[in-house]
């Protein structure tokens, strides 16, 4: 469990303190995939670097499994860092070392593993990230996705309990992003590792995260289960991210809605209700006519969801609303 207790961070620039993170308190549970989303400069990079103290906080306490890591001395800090793996946007592999040597590097630095142990662990990790045949290549000979797999293997070498991902998929193409995210999800499930992932893409959060914090200007503005935050965003920044990830142009949408007659509702289906053939039966019962203005069905991690924007004309609207709510569908009246 990672606990932020009124953690603050500011940088000294020319004698003035520029705040990068305002006082933040939050808890990341053991074994969850926690997403931090925000535009560049929102402070998410700072936040993730506070967890392994690459950036020391200027105020507050950070507790990891009930230990205050901000009080560590240099050697305690180094021992602690071995238990926290980290992967990066630009992979940060050593170009002078082979794939196998890159993965072995943190174990060699730790100085507590025998050669045989290191070799065995490297082989195991190479298989884990499906790079067994690339062991003796140099990073420059690999594709972006392969490099990030090496990064992941290296981060896992010393069997960490926490994995920090700093924009780990931002330099990858969509397909490679998918496969890297799947690998991260597998690792989280199989090893029970806590993953803290920062990104500027809501889509990454939607695919792998359990909970998410949205950051804006050095502050966490919204936090909660991904399905809640994603389907019912409250803060304007969160809304921007959700619209962006669904490639919705807000002005265009407003124009479309303006032309539709009657009431406009947005229905959100979650889990099993996504697949129930509800609209037809509700229309029959209540006598309303509907037309679908927009709609999509997708997944949040493993949970299916659907969102429909309808315009309803005639009939008894109350019956329709009640029927939707009875079927566990969230109804939002847009007009």
């Amino acid at each position, binding site marked *: 469990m990672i606990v932020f207790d009124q953690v603050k961070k500011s940088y000294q620039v020319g004698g003035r303190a520029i705040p990068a993170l305002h006082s933040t308190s939050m808890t990341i549970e053991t074994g969850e995939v926690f997403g931090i989303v925000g535009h560049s400069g929102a402070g998410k990079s700072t936040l993730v670097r506070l967890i392994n103290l690459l950036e020391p906080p200027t105020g507050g306490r950070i507790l990891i499994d009930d230990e205050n890591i901000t009080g560590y001395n240099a050697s305690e800090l180094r021992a602690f*860092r071995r238990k926290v793996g980290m992967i990066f946007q*630009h992979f940060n592999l050593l170009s*002078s070392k082979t794939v196998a040597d890159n993965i072995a590097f943190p174990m060699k630095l730790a100085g507590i593993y025998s050669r045989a142990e290191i070799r065995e662990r490297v082989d195991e990790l190479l298989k884990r990230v499906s790079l067994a045949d690339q062991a003796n290549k140099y990073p420059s000979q690999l594709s972006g996705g392969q490099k990030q797999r090496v990064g992941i293997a290296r981060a896992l070498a010393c069997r960490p309990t926490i994995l920090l991902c700093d924009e780990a998929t931002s330099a990858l193409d969509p397909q490679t992003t998918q496969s890297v995210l799947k690998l991260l999800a597998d690792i989280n499930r199989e090893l029970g590792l806590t993953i803290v992932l920062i990104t500027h893409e809501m889509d990454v959060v939607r695919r792998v995260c359990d909970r998410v914090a949205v950051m804006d200007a050095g502050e966490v503005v919204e936090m909660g289960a991904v399905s809640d935050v994603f389907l019912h965003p409250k803060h304007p920044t969160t809304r921007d991210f959700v619209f962006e990830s669904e490639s919705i142009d807000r002005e265009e949408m407003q124009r479309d809605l303006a032309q539709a007659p009657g009431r406009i509702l947005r229905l959100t289906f979650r889990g099993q209700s996504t697949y129930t053939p509800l609209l037809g039966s509700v229309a029959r019962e209540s006598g309303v006519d509907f037309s679908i203005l927009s709609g999509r069905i997708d997944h949040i991690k493993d949970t299916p969801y659907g969102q429909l924007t309808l315009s309803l004309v005639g009939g008894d609207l109350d019956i329709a609303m009640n029927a939707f709510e009875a079927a566990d569908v969230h109804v939002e009246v847009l007009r």
Partner: protein
Amino acid sequence: MEALMENLLTNVDWTEIGWASWDTLVMVGMSLLFSVLIGLPLGVMLFLFGKRQLLEQPVAYAVLSFVVNILRSVPFIILLIVMIPFTVMLIGTSLGVAGAIPPLVAGGAPFFARLVETSLREVDRGIIEATQAMGATVKQVVFGALLPEALPGIIAGITVTAITLVSYAAMSGVVGGGGLGDLAIRFGYQRFQTDVMVITVALLVIFVQLLQMAGDRLVLYFSRK
């Protein structure tokens, strides 16, 4: 043909040229060795003490940087003369091959230190950060990540330093150092033996070419980017 050579190169004593070449080789080799031994740690310190680096030490950086700049801003010919008392104290003489080595190192080490500092700065900061995130000590960051990553740049720096030392070594002939420069000054310049001058210059050119080729090959061999 042989007669032509005899006529053209009347003053050239090939044994003398051979010894002078050997002396130049020794001077460059020894001074390069010490320049690297002193310049490499100096360059690493300059890097580590620098602004926003691992061991940021503004005062130590300013002092080191000042010393390096002084040694680098004094023209080498002046440095040769200024160094004479110190060289005598260190070696017992300021003449010959041995006497030329201390001023060569004084000129070469700070030059190489700056080149080391520059090539360390070119190592991606992300790599340093990643190594720190693995729980590395500063020593481990330097030896495990920084130096191996900067190796091609450092080898290129050794090549440039070696070539600079060739020209410095030739210059040391002015104040009684040995080698090809000495020959060029004593015979080529003071006795107007143009043929000796041409041969020594040609040998120096060949020497520099060989150094550059060898250096380039090594850089290529160690580059993994």
